[in-house]
């Protein structure tokens, strides 16, 4: 019971992170719901192995991102779904057209990156320091730096295109 209430608290605190990961790694509303559930399930499964060596958010990003990239899209049928449309839909009222358009541009830039870069980009946008990015991704600090400058370069090329 204690474990359950701790876990729900953590997930609630990081709800936004799960939403953002599902937005980046899926294209359809159904896939988004599917991935959302899968992430929560995998977090629950992995929660026992969390020993507190890393910050809870570091652990959470790692498990959620790993779930997103190992999601195999072959199976079309879905499990029983919880009514969770509201979870994967963001309230956009009052509607800010300029912001929504800019957000779509951000998504489209991220979706054009490869899977490794996508994860790095998300963490960078989340305001993570290079040290934490290195911890989550398993890359060395130097590699994180090199890779991020390449992403910046790629983004510039995308803009020119």
């Amino acid at each position, binding site marked *: 019971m204690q474990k*359950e209430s701790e*876990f*729900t608290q953590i*997930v*609630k605190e990081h*709800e*936004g992170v799960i*939403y*953002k990961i599902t937005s980046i790694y899926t294209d359809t509303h159904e896939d988004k719901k*599917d991935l*959302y*559930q*899968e992430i*929560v*399930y*995998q977090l*629950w*499964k*992995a929660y026992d*192995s969390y020993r507190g060596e890393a910050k809870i958010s570091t652990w959470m990003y*790692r*498990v959620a*991102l*790993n779930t997103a*990239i*190992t999601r*195999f899209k*072959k*199976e079309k*049928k*879905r*499990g*029983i*779904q*919880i009514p969770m449309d*509201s979870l994967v839909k*963001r*309230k956009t009222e009052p509607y800010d057209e300029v*912001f929504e358009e*800019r957000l779509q*541009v*951000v998504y489209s*830039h991220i979706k054009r990156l*490869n*899977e*490794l870069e996508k*994860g790095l980009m998300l963490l*960078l*946008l*989340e*305001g993570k320091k290079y040290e934490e990015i290195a911890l*989550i*991704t*398993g*890359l060395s600090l130097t*590699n994180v730096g090199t*890779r991020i400058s390449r992403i*910046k370069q790629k*983004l510039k090329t995308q*803009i020119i295109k």
Partner: protein
Amino acid sequence: MELEEMQTVWSKLSDQLETQKKLTNKMIIMMTKEKYRSKINKIAIPEILGTVICYGTIVLILANFSRLDNWYNMLSGLISMTILLILPVLSLRSIHRMKRIDIAKNSYQQTLLSYTRAKKRFKTVAKWGYYLSFVLMFAILPVSAKVLNNKDLIADSKSVWPFVVAIPLAIVFVIFFAKWVMRSYNSSINAAENLIKEISEVDE
């Protein structure tokens, strides 16, 4: 859009989401239950069913092997059994590799590398699976005619015309089919290869 601009948009999105929290304890607990999960991890079910069918067919051929009384029927039987034996093993092994990745312990890079390698293997197996099933389609014809109807497809044919028509048609079909398989699988195999190269390069 520059990175700094993207960060501003992202931060606004984060603020918005922070004020729109909707998850309830009940929803979270429901999502942790197996029955509510997506069927992603049940991906092996069609493969397992396929394996049962393949192995059932092997048993049927083996039980009636004495009825395959000439070299071409015996050869067809052996080819069919080999394909029916190998294909499911390859397919299930490649799925198992994808499923055994420890996403709780591995880093993003390790997970991505293992998964992309496993996915590439899966696609390669699937591609060869198509080619082999085509061979199987031909190999099993004389075997099933003999086993199920006790009819020798070649010796009992009264006319050569069905073969003269069927063989060129089959060749044309094979060519189109092979091209389609190549087109469908090669791009994803190449994409996986490129990603592996890129991730490994970071590793060095």
